[in-house]
């Protein structure tokens, strides 16, 4: 798989802090994957996000995005065009007075010609299923809808990577679902690479790959199945086990002879059904 982002031996220290927020971090992000980054508050997840599109620069090491380095000033805009970030608070990133204006804002900044801009706005608003709201004002939108507009603003710039920085943590369950489904569709149909910084382990369980951050270091990397096997590490990292793993353990305690660990609810129901039919 093609490597889109390379983070090599990166450390970062905020001014006036005596400890590094990130220490010797190395990781790769591959084209088309859904990468979940999980970890406790203060583990360095959000710092990493800001480093990935050059809002912060490493104190040591290097980050490159499709060959462009965040440390080179003349390459920074090439990096930013490729990496779009959806932040946590839907109200803090809506700058326009309507959906259309909000999506236009980013394109204006990149100097896209007017005719093409109109086309791209309509196209990206459609791709997040918000066409019916294209002239709506922000206060008429729900949190989930605002986040989808933020995503439209990003995909209008044709990025290769979308970072969700706890983008669903302020939403109600329905809003959370609609945002994840929207991004999932972009990921699957259009091959946009997704990095999701999240505390939602159910969501992480469905990722292609998971990285566990702890005190500024990447403690574990792998498929959800590999990573979630290490219960001890997850608890140490301030996390928890996904629901179906916890239920699976409780079922075994009750004497249900499950053989493996099941990461998703579908897998667990299937395994139970197999056992049940054999019994």
């Amino acid at each position, binding site marked *: 798989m093609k490597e889109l982002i390379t983070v090599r031996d990166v450390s970062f220290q905020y001014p006036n802090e005596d400890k590094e927020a990130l220490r010797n971090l190395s990781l790769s992000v591959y084209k088309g994957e859904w990468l979940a980054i999980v970890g406790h508050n*203060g583990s360095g997840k959000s710092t990493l996000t800001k480093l990935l599109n050059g809002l912060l620069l490493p104190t040591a090491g290097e980050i490159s995005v499709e060959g462009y380095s965040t440390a080179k000033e003349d390459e920074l805009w090439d990096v930013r065009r490729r990496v779009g970030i959806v932040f946590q608070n839907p109200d803090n990133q809506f700058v326009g007075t309507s959906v259309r204006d909000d999506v236009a804002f980013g394109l204006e900044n990149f100097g896209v010609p007017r005719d093409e801009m109109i086309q791209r706005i309509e196209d990206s608003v459609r791709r997040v299923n918000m066409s019916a709201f294209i002239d709506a004002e922000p206060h008429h939108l*729900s949190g989930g809808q605002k986040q989808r507009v933020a995503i439209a603003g990003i995909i209008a710039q044709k990025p290769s990577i979308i970072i969700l920085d706890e983008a669903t943590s302020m939403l109600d369950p329905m809003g959370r679902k609609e945002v994840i489904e929207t991004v999932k569709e972009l990921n699957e149909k259009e091959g946009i690479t997704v990095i999701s910084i999240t*505390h939602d*382990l159910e969501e992480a369980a469905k990722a292609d790959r998971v990285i566990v951050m702890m005190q500024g270091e990447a403690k574990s990397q792998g498929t959800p199945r590999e990573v979630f096997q290490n219960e001890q590490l997850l608890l140490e990292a301030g996390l*928890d086990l996904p629901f179906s793993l916890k*239920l699976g353990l*409780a079922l075994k305690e009750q004497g249900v002879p499950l053989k493996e660990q099941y990461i998703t609810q579908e897998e667990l129901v299937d395994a*139970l059904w197999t056992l*049940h039919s054999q*019994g």
Partner: protein
Amino acid sequence: MDITLTGLTHRYKPKTPFERLALDDIHLSITSGSFLAIIGHTGSGKSTLIQHLNGLLKPSEGTMQVGNLTLSAQGKKQPLKELRRRVGIVFQYPEHQLFDETVEKDVMFGPMNFGVSEEQARQRAHAMIELVGLPAEVLTKSPFDLSGGQMRRVAIAGVLAMEPEVLVLDEPTAGLDPKGRREIMDLFYRLHKEKGLTTILVTHSMEDAAHYADRIVVMEQGRVYLEGTPSEVFREREMLQRASLDVPETLQFLLEWQQRSKQALTLSSFTIEDTARVIAQSFGEKGDEHAR
């Protein structure tokens, strides 16, 4: 402290083209010492409702009674100060409201505002910082030098220092990691029990509502849409889904299993252990049939 809402209605920007009915004829009794969860999607009226509880908003119609204090639409002299002493609200992201030079001063601000002496306020600050699980060293630090999770605890200590009898929590764990969530919720539950507080929790987590609450109120379009014990409310899955909500994940899983295994199963509590027990039983019963 008993709380009674009678025909409580709230209109934003009344008599303007922007008038909006946010609460529509709410009738609700909250028993002293009980734990109530309020659930509902964004914009369903939850926040408007809790802002009445300590008089940040006044009813447009109807009344609200907290103990012997009454807040009404017409009342000229509303007992706001006393109401705010009794009802403490922990807002969403309460750490954004920290402002003072040191943690100690920040926590002391609330009680002193209500006429508590400096010495007493200091004592309370020290006690509350310990209660929320922070080391005494943080008292002399600037709140802004602390981590996000620690700042959240300082803000909570500030509300507790006013010694409220009713504690209103507006998504108190939003943005925290799973461990932090559990610690903060366990802290509130312990306080609820130890101090006999009346606790009102606004949450998007059906799991927390099921786990901590004695009763649940579901809000939808400014009205009380459903009300009852967790088992009563979560029996109404279709109604919840119509209000953009759902049942806790334990029950979701059980329903999935019920459909697959064609067995009628019931869940009386919503813990993982109980769910496992009920599912394990469905295996056991099957085994019994074979034995017969």
